[in-house]
């Protein structure tokens, strides 16, 4: 890491911590007003950057870098993106600090489950070191053992446990108690069996072309997914979209109430 980059990181860190300390010193009302103003300006920037046509200048004073595709705000998109990433970095650091505090307390007070907290610290320190030093020859093996030998199979194992739960859940919970449940079961049967070669074997005797091909299980499954499923998903997607728009407006205009918005934490 070169010295300039290190200095940049340190000054950014100092500036960030200074800013947070200053924010803490403000009175509750002032702090809220500041956050409302910043949220509105940030939202307005992205909205204007998106809707203003290419070539738009700031009263003729600030011309865009490329008149055919940019407006006067476009050159700031990357800068603001970097600022967002730095703020995100602080959130990540806070999360790590929070985890370390909780697990550290459990470990030093020898509370129930302290072994898990110890495992957390060992895993975190080992993975951080291996990740940072992986370019050094001596650490390559350590990194490979931890990442490919431990992290990768552990991740895959946790996810694959789902298969066992799904199988037992299918046996216990999937009951044909009503007409809707029956329809769901028929659809599930068709889609599930059409996904796999054993299912396709059931209608493999039908021709692959002509009207009879549409009776093959994979054709019926494709119809269920591209017609029935798609119509339902479009409806859900439309609802989510409208809700999202309303939610974005509420956040942008600071109308949202609750622990993270109106109330003091």
């Amino acid at each position: 890491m070169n010295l300039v980059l290190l200095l940049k990181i340190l000054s950014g860190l100092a500036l960030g911590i200074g800013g947070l300390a200053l924010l803490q010193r403000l009175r509750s009302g002032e702090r809220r007003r500041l956050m409302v103003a910043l949220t509105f300006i940030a939202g307005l920037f992205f909205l204007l950057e998106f809707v203003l046509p290419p070539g738009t200048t700031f009263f003729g004073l600030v011309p865009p870098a490329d008149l055919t595709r940019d407006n006067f705000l476009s050159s700031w998109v990357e800068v603001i993106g970097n600022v967002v990433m730095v703020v995100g970095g602080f959130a990540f650091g806070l999360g790590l600090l929070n985890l370390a505090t909780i697990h550290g307390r459990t470990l030093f007070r020898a509370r129930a489950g302290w072994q898990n907290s110890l495992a957390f610290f060992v895993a975190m320190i080992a993975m951080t070191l291996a990740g940072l030093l992986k370019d050094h020859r001596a650490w390559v093996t350590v990194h490979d053992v931890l990442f490919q030998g431990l992290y990768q199979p552990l991740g895959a194992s946790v996810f694959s446990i789902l298969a066992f739960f799904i199988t037992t859940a299918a046996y216990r919970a999937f009951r044909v108690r009503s007409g809707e449940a029956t329809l769901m079961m028929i659809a599930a049967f068709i889609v599930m069996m059409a996904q796999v070669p054993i299912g396709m074997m059931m209608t493999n005797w039908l021709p692959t072309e002509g009207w009879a091909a549409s009776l093959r299980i994979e054709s019926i499954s494709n119809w269920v997914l591209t017609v029935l499923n798609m119509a339902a998903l479009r409806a859900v997607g439309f609802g989510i979209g409208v809700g999202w728009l309303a939610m974005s407006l509420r956040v942008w205009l600071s109308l949202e109430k609750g622990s993270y918005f109106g109330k003091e934490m």
Partner: protein
Amino acid sequence: MASVTPAEIERQRRQSRIIYGVLAALMVLFLLFEMKLPFVVGPQALGLYDAVGKVRDDQLVLLSVNWEAGTVGESMPQTEALIQHLFLAKKRFAIFGIDPIGPGFAQRIAERQAERLGKTYGVDWVNWGYKPGQLAMFLGLARDIPGTIKQDSIRKADLTTLPVMRGIKSARDLGLILEVTSTDSIEIWIQYFHGVYGTPVGYAPTAVMVPEAYPYLNAKQLVGMLAGIKGAAEYADLLERNWDVEMTWEYPPRRAMNAVAIAHVLIVLLIVLGNYQYFTRHRRRAERT
């Protein structure tokens, strides 16, 4: 609500253990021994295969890899199938990810396949590495690729100095975007790349995410899709049929497909059995009262 007796809980536990045991045994058996089962390649996999073939020589394919160890069973064969096709079809490509783990996995696959197929890093492919998935980054990427990515992640070389990046400046120079993912990351490519620049987008999600992709496929916003391990197996089939080169796999998709097949059959049988037991018990109770 009727309370569950300890005997009932014990019976359920016993049943679960039997189901777990049967499922594990069947999966292991089908993963160990490869069986040739009939297979039909769907229109989605075919669409993606054709889209790769249509990429012009002066264009670059962006292989966005956003999956982690949890979905390695599905996402790795998908990534491997696409990388093998890109190498065989002589399409230049760049690995990229908004997930820090994904590009590393893809790089490992690409290095292995490049060595086997005689491809050169920096000429035939490049790894742009990981970039945090902020909207500003995507907007910047669409307008100015070398300015946003700056350097590759292996050699730390200036992107403009690599032959693979010759003539590649913005989203207009991308012939295809391939998103292999286990996260909800497809919309950004559709909105800001396909929507604005018309760049074709292909999708390779995990099986559980497949139903959500159909509206995009229907609207032709996606050129094709590899639906989980089934999609990877279909693509492997297409590659084997169309290329006179032996394909190699870290996780053979056909074998995994057969294991999934038997799991699906078991689930269907268990649903039938569960319903049979439910109705028999229901009838017996009705007869008693």
